[in-house]
């Protein structure tokens, strides 16, 4: 079985290479991995290694010829094999090349007819043909690919040009798309990889007949209460906002290690660490653990009671983890989980939602990058916590991947000022970025 050697693609953007020297001349024996030719690309001169073993049967291009990527350059046959012109032509034809016809140097064919055949083919030099019009015709979509691969690329919104083809002549096939999707997943681009035409809504979705009627619903008491309190806070409390990015790599690692020691029912959430850290930081900044009383007094609370916003049906509630600065993480985790569960079931006790001195709202589980919350009166501040994400970061001048989380403090300017609030955020960083401190 004769094998076809094609111009290899030696770089991502390589379109053609110039064959500058044949290392194996016709008739040489070739082992797998032998250098058979030298090729010059825009960037360098490189050696072409053979993937086949046998005899160099025929060069299909002359030296110093520019050849498009994947075009046939030589035929290698098994030792002792003598393929006919038709077989060679079929082989080259299958590979998309024009023809293999080129007289074998020094080879004498028997009979006059054979000579005539050779003459006929001589009049059509090979390099011209390979450079001919066929080489300029690019396949559908610009990339050689199977219809299935094209559809999959469409569905997943992938650029076919970015996918390495493994099929005949570098055709991109299903397997290649799957490999590409796997690599996206490996890079953590799961959501992109899972896209299956989601960004295109079926046209029927826009049909006028299907628009639902307006609906007027009565506000629940909870909804009304939230509205009143938030309106009061947002209109009457002079908010100011400070955002900061926290390094969370160590925290995530510590959490992972601790959770290995804990039963499922006691597993620690990221938020539990934040509650503890905020509580300890507030202990150092009592002015933020405070409430305004009238127009002349500020009450600095002795207890550090952390309110945790919990989404419930039709609204949200703030459950309170009392004396969070004094409780071990494990207890905080259990209390908050129990209270949150009861809040969602509408069975929360009154003293579990009262007495908070500072609140935390965490929307990290929804993948929120950054947000600011409205202060929960009569507190002096609320911390809005966003998702822990792996992001590109610069460490010692090098770009690398780091675990990061953003948090935004909303503070009451009547009680505190930017510098103090910023220091609080910095102290919080000490706790969150060296999370062992939370265990002391």
């Amino acid at each position, binding site marked *: 079985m004769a094998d076809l050697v094609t111009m290899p693609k030696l770089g991502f953007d390589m379109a053609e290479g110039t064959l500058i020297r044949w290392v194996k001349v016709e008739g040489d024996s070739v082992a797998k991995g032998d250098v058979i030719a030298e090729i010059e690309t825009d960037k360098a001169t490189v050696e072409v290694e053979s993937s086949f073993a046998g005899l160099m049967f025929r060069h299909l291009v002359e030296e110093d010829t520019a050849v498009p990527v994947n075009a046939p350059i030589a035929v290698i046959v098994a030792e002792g094999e003598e393929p006919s012109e038709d077989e060679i032509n079929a082989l080259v034809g299958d590979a998309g090349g024009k023809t293999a016809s080129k007289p074998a140097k020094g080879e004498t064919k028997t009979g006059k007819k054979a000579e005539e055949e050779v003459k006929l083919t001589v009049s059509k030099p090979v390099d011209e043909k390979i450079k001919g019009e066929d080489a300029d015709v690019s396949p559908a979509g610009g990339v050689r690919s*199977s*219809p*299935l691969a094209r*559809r999959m690329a469409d569905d997943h919104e992938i650029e076919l040009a970015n996918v390495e083809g493994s*099929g*005949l002549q570098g*055709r991109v*096939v*299903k397997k290649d798309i799957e490999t590409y999707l796997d690599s996206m997943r490996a890079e953590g681009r799961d959501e992109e990889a899972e896209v299956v035409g989601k960004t295109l809504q079926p046209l029927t979705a826009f049909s006028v007949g299907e628009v639902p009627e307006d609906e007027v619903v009565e506000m629940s008491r909870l909804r009304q209460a939230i509205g009143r309190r938030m309106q009061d806070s947002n209109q009457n409390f002079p908010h100011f906002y400070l955002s900061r990015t926290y390094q969370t790599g160590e925290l995530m690692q510590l959490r992972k290690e601790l959770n290995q020691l804990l039963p499922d029912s006691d597993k620690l959430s990221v938020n539990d660490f934040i509650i503890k850290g905020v509580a300890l930081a507030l202990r150092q900044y009592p002015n933020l653990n405070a409430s305004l009383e009238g127009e002349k007094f500020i009450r600095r609370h002795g207890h550090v009671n952390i309110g945790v916003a919990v989404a419930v049906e039709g609204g949200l509630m703030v459950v309170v983890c009392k004396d969070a600065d004094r409780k071990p993480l494990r207890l905080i985790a259990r209390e908050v989980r129990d209270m949150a569960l009861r809040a969602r079931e509408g069975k929360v006790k009154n003293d579990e939602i009262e007495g908070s001195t500072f609140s935390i709202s965490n929307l990290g589980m929804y993948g929120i990058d950054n947000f600011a919350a409205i202060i929960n009166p009569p507190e002096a501040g609320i911390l809005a916590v966003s998702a822990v994400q792996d992001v590109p970061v610069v460490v010692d001048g090098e770009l690398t991947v780091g675990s990061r989380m953003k948090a935004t403090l909303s503070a009451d300017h009547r009680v505190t000022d930017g510098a103090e609030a910023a220091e609080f955020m910095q102290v919080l960083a000490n706790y969150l970025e060296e999370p062992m401190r939370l265990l002391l």
Partner: protein
Amino acid sequence: MARMTMREAISKAIWEEMERDENVFIMGEEVGLWGGTYAVTKGFYDRFGEKRVRDTPIAEAAIIGGAIGAALTGLRPIAELMTINFAFVAMDHIVNEAAKLHYMFGGQFILPLVIRVVSGGGRQLGATHSQTPDAIFAHFPGLKVVSPGTPADAKGLLKSAIRSDDPVFFIENATLYQSKGEVPDDEDYLEPLGKSKVQREGDDVTIVAYSKMVPAALEAAEMLSEDGIEAEVVDLRSIRPLDMDPVIKSFKRTNRAVVAEEGWRSYGIGAEVSARIYELAFDFVDAPVKRVAQAEVPLPYNAALEQLALPQTEDIYRAAKEVVHG
């Protein structure tokens, strides 16, 4: 179930139907006293007599023409032609009468006719007696063209053909007469006409075949399995009407297909099946469909050359490997 040859399965199907319905009779060259060129009607003459097991002159046009007349006037004839190659002599009766009478007379007549023929090469019968021109007959609307690949299907399909009110062109492959398989004993065991069937399941490549290429494809599938490639083999069984559903269902999973037929490649079954794959499942095509078929020459007489020209298990195996790696 009983293990038997395809010859026995075909014989049994005809016997049972003749026992069941006295309007069923068989006519053809040497079907009577001699018991059939391929011994399919052995013992029939003694059991059913000369009126229902009729020897005819060597005159295919007369056999088919007579059978059409009998069918039009209420009988259910089975006309046997010694080989499909002789059907050319009766071509006008087959394609201009059998295929069209029901249609051209506005459905006033039914034509419950079965034409049994023997197709295929490989027995050194020379170029004119070894052809596989199945596709020609499948070209004409109005005929059902059936060709089984297993003994069980031979029985079930032939019984359905005899009970069908439409003309059925039933193609048997001479080299399959000796093939053996389990065949249901049930006298009402019927296989539907115009329904393809998955004969082997697999996820990597779909091999579409019929008749003699079915056992070859199954054999190739076992060889592929040793290489870690699991082939699904879809047996067309009827080439008109052509049931593409199992083929397309399979192809949408495997995305790669080989179509194998014993006849010539050009304008053949493989051409039709692959065209339909491109029409019905273009978005699922991951590699060009490969066709395995007979070399485009009149079939040589020389035994070695004849085998070289005919498609072999090895050809299907190689085509499947190429399709999977392409």
